[in-house]
């Protein structure tokens, strides 16, 4: 009995409010109620549409131009978009522009040129990696021998990144500066990089953890027990040669035919 009274007492404070609300609603025009329902529906629909449009940004529609400092990314960017030769300086921020691929479909996506300087690289890769549909890794073929460890480390960092290994973008390694006589061929660069990545797999996994306890990425490249080869990766990797400056100097055409063909196949 007392429980019942308690329950009633609990309901009672709400009861008058509910009654009042019901009376109010009944008093009003039905149009008013319809108006409320429609506005609620509009809000819900707009939320859904907003989510759809926002999420469409993370749909991979960008091709990133990455590489070490001075490898020729900005000049390649200019050549791909306008075909002109432009003097360049070290980039401080990224540049992006829409690019029309040279294939029958005429698909167009965004070409993004990221700065290559060591202190800026990680931030910009972090920002754009999830939107990448393909990554063009530009390598300076002329001074490759001196820089092989730095190139390999950056490539390793890219390949073991969690977002990249999840999205599996198409990787093109463009061996740039082929107009210089001492430039190494794409095949040689591929072999050297494979050897270097082999060593890096060991040293990187033995590296110290960070001070806040967050472990590094646990992605293991290639197959355990076997030497590393680019064909073992889940993503498609292609090595090609190009020359952004072109063999005829500043006024001539750039030698980027193979790069354009690969980009057209995306």
């Amino acid at each position: 009995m007392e429980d019942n009274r308690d329950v009633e007492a609990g309901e009672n404070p709400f009861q008058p409010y509910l009654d009042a609300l019901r009376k109010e609603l009944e008093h009003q025009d039905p149009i008013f109620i319809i108006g409320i329902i429609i506005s609620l529906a509009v809000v819900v629909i707009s939320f859904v549409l907003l989510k759809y449009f926002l999420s469409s940004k993370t749909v991979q529609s960008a091709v990133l131009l990455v590489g070490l400092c001075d490898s020729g990314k900005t000049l390649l960017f200019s050549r791909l978009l306008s075909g002109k030769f432009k003097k360049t300086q070290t980039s401080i921020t990224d540049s992006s522009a829409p690019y029309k691929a040279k294939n029958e479909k005429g698909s167009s996506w965004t070409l993004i040129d990221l700065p290559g300087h060591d202190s800026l690289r990680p931030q910009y890769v972090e920002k754009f990696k999830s939107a990448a549909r393909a990554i063009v890794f530009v390598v300076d073929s002329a001074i490759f021998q001196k820089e092989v460890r730095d190139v390999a480390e950056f490539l390793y960092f890219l390949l073991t990144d969690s977002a990249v290994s999840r999205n599996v973008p198409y990787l093109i390694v463009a061996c740039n500066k082929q107009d210089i006589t001492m430039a190494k061929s794409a095949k040689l660069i591929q072999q050297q990089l494979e050897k270097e990545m082999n060593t890096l797999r060991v040293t990187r996994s033995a590296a110290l953890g960070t001070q806040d306890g967050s472990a590094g990425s646990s992605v293991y490249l290639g197959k355990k027990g076997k030497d590393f080869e680019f064909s073992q990766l889940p993503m498609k990797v292609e090595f090609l040669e190009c020359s952004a400056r072109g063999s005829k100097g500043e006024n001539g055409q750039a030698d980027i035919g193979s790069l354009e063909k690969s980009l057209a196949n995306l």
Partner: protein
Amino acid sequence: MLDFFTIFSKGGIVLWCFQGTGVTESFTGPVNALIRSVILQERSGNNSYSHDALSLKYKLDNEFELVFVVGFQKILTLTYVDKFIDDVQLHFRDRYKNELEQKGALALLNSHFAFEDDFKMLLREAEESSKARGPTSMRSFNASLKSQKTVKSMIETKGGDKGKEQGGKKNKNAKKEGKGEKAKAPTSAQKTEENGNQGLTQEEIIQKKREEFIRKRMGAPVEKPSKSPKPVKEKPKGKEKRVWTLGGSSTKELDYSQSNGNGAHAAGDQGLDRGRGGGRRCCREGGMFGMLKGLVGSKSLSQEDMEPVLDKMRDHLIAKNVAAEIASQLCDSVAKKLEGKVMGTFTTVASTVKGALQDSLVQILQPKRRVDILRDVLEARSQRRPFVITFCGVNGVGKSTNLAKISFWLIENGFTVLIAACDTFRAGAVEQLRTHQRRLNSLHPPQDHGGRPIVQLYEKGYGKDAAGIAMEAIAYARNQAFDVVLVDTAGRMQDNTPLMTALAKLIAVNMPDLVLFVGEALVGNEAVDQLVKFNQALADHSMSDKPRLIDGIVLTKFDTIDDKVGAAISMTYITGQPIVFVGTGQTYNDLRSLNARAVVGALMKA
């Protein structure tokens, strides 16, 4: 006279360039050096930089993301350069507003900027204006005021303007009186009247004085116009109070409570307060919708907008143990980077500034070169030479302890280590290292490594020359095919010149692969002094023209600070070198590497 002038976008595309006549070498090298050492290292506080024989001045345009750089020979002192850059910037912006406003790099790539003529005109104007303000030549006698005065007016100056000496004590006194009375405005009027009287006849003088008398009777009946006692009376009054420019006449000027109160108020609350403050300002101006105008719409940042936020951020950084001058340099650099930038909608000044500061802090902490010790050791091993690491630092920062931790990590990865005991000064230093060696060998017994102990100690007791011991240790390691040599040195204060010379000699003679400066995370402003003096000593006492400086930093005692991690910023900012190891405790396992994002997160946390 300029060597070159370039305008390029922050994305790296050169929009327009000018090369002075007779200049053959390309400017790409110096400009790249400017970008890498100044802009990317957040030293853009002062806008000039010197590279070899060239001096470079630059200006950032943050609204359109452009950089303007001018280069000229260092030996020339051109005074018009600063103003010239500003003029060129404004001119370029106005002329190419349409192309620059478009988003995306296509507009920059496709348009051709024919800026030659405007540039030449501006240059000519600047050069002429600097020539016009040439050294002022002395005036000739005829041009001076002295020749204008008649002789009569200069005689008998009872308090005239700059009484000219015509000889006589009377005039000298009169001059003194005149100078003293010049300051007293009401009386000087009377004096000049008297002066003017000299030229008139006696009757006219009496007439004038009668008129004066009547005027004064009307105006100031209290004051009895008497001329003769007046000049005598005014002499003591002539000595007027000295007004110190920096001292206030009253303490009212020293009362800053009002402005402080307002400042604290405006910058006190986070978030939307800036917008509300702007709204409050706008409310007075623009009515009801003015409040929203401060929040929405494109507003470009100016120095005054950022001032309170930057002050607050500077104090916050200093509270987090960043050295004071580093914090202020950082804030200046961020202000330079944001000046003129157009904010997006619904962004407040505080959030923009905070974001920019966060980005620049992460950028400073990112290493500027590859940091992978294991890989470098493997490389040295393939070249059949030992990899030499030297530890230096002041007393008591943890050199020996961290040396033991690093050797533990190395032997865990299968490298053989030789410890060189070059601390021949501190009591028990050699014994300490011997104990570490014994413990490490017991953890990794020699049976596992082909019968050879994995850690060995090379010591020659106390009192000997450290550089000699280091050289012998490296030779021994090369003979016995050790992979790594860790050289432990004695702690020394940065002001102690003989000890700093000894350290510099050790490093210059032995040419180690890595010179690590060990610094504790508890240090505050001292970090700046320590690092500067250490680097200075290493640079001064090395014989070669490419001296070995500090290559990396070991940050120790990181577990003792909670989130006052500012020492990391101070050290990397001063040297530009990365933090290679972080010591987080006193056992062998407490060795970590730096995570830039985590440190910056802890630093920016309220």
